[in-house]
């Protein structure tokens, strides 16, 4: 089997770098392969390639080198570099980001609890206290402090539950200050999310699916 193989598939062109090959050698073969394609400079269409590295995980450096090879030819472009395997650390972070933590304690004034992933909060969050997580926040306890979801920049996170006594809701970098004027729309069975104006909106839980579908349409 050769070091680099070019294939056409329904996703477009795919270059497979054999994971048993020597990387330096494969790189050279890649260059030759590109040259062989006889890409005319008159052709205006940019051709996109996906690079698959099999069971090899390229380091940051190696990814860069591959990308520079392609940079020399403005007519071709890398869509993505995909491997069958994942970095262990990345996987652990992914798992952490997707887990649900249950918190039951009292968070007092001046205390700050930080989580990763989604949080089910059954405890009591006092005034002057803060809970923060990278994912969404499901509140079944009492909150009078600051609730942060989607820290620091996850705008698809949301905050669910009884929020009328909270001091502030924060999602990603957006802050909503709760005052007498807006507290009454934050009764139980509500959820807060980031709307198309990039500000925090509040809706009925029963409309959750609809709202999320709308927002997904926007981001795609």
């Amino acid at each position, binding site marked *: 089997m050769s070091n680099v193989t070019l294939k056409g598939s329904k996703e477009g062109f795919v270059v497979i770098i054999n994971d048993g090959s020597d990387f330096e050698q494969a790189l050279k073969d890649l260059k030759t392969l590109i040259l062989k394609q006889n890409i005319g400079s008159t052709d205006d269409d940019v051709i996109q390639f996906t690079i698959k590295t099999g069971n090899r995980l390229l380091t940051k450096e190696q990814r860069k080198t591959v990308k520079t090879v392609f940079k020399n030819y403005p007519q071709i472009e890398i869509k993505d570099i995909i491997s069958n395997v994942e970095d262990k650390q990345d996987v652990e972070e992914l798992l952490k980001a997707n887990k649900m933590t249950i918190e039951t304690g*009292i968070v*007092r*004034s*001046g*205390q700050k609890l930080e989580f990763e992933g989604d949080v089910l909060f059954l405890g*009591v969050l*006092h*005034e*002057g*206290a803060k809970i923060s997580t990278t994912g969404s926040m499901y509140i079944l306890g009492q909150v009078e402090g600051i609730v942060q979801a989607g820290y620091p920049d996850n705008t698809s996170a949301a905050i669910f539950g009884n929020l009328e006594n909270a001091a502030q809701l924060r999602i990603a970098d957006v802050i909503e200050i709760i005052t007498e004027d807006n507290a009454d729309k934050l009764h139980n069975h509500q959820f807060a999310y980031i709307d198309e104006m990039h500000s925090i909106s509040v809706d009925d839980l029963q409309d959750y699916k609809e709202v999320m579908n709308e927002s997904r349409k926007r981001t795609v």
Partner: protein
Amino acid sequence: MGISIVVTSGKGGVGKTTTTANISSVLASLGKKVCMVDLDIGLRNLDAVLGLTNRVVYDIVDVAQNRVVLSQALVRDPRFEDNLYLLAASQFADKYVLDQDSVRRIVTYLKQRFDFVIIDCPAGIEYGFQNAVTVADGAIVVTNPELASVSDADRVVGILESMKMPITPHLIINRVRKNMINEGTSMRIDDIVNHLRIPLLGVVVDEDEVIAASNSGKTVVSDKNSDAGHSYRNIAHRMLGESIPLDIFNDTKKVGFFSRVFGRKK
């Protein structure tokens, strides 16, 4: 071996020194050996509240800096035979002269000689507070029925809980105004207790007699007609493990709540 208890609040001026003086006097009159330690360096006033100012010769800083031995610096309160002593704060030094090690050494020694070492803590949560709470076995958190005071108490309770003291922090709500509670213009006792979620040791009313007593160097517990004095006596008894129902709001509808707290039917 006795126990050390720090009287603390977060917010200033809520009644830490008054509480220290009164519960210490009651415990001493009940035959316990009690030593009060004033850690409010630079702002000492526990001695004044007790009318002991003239008797102070050496203070805690003299002990920490080895100018005198501890027993020389203890001021005896002559009204309580051999039961009540005070280790005064220094009026002249600044608070940073006392480090945690010397405070620990002094309190550990006092615990061997006394049943109770009651530490009057400075307001705030900085240096002096840290020194006081790290050497204590337990804490009494004093608050007034006001939002700012309760919020600072909450902050303090959080810090105390994270220190995992042998005795959980207990609460005293001081300067309660019955009329304001009945009018609904003051925070309610059960709201404060439900918020802070620590055991309630007692409730003390706001009363002119407290100020009058401390102005004359006496504690209000010596005034048999004072409601506040009565409450402080009950608090001291509760500290000794007796279960005495809270009675100051017997005439309101909150009896159910109190019996819940102390597991007693009234």
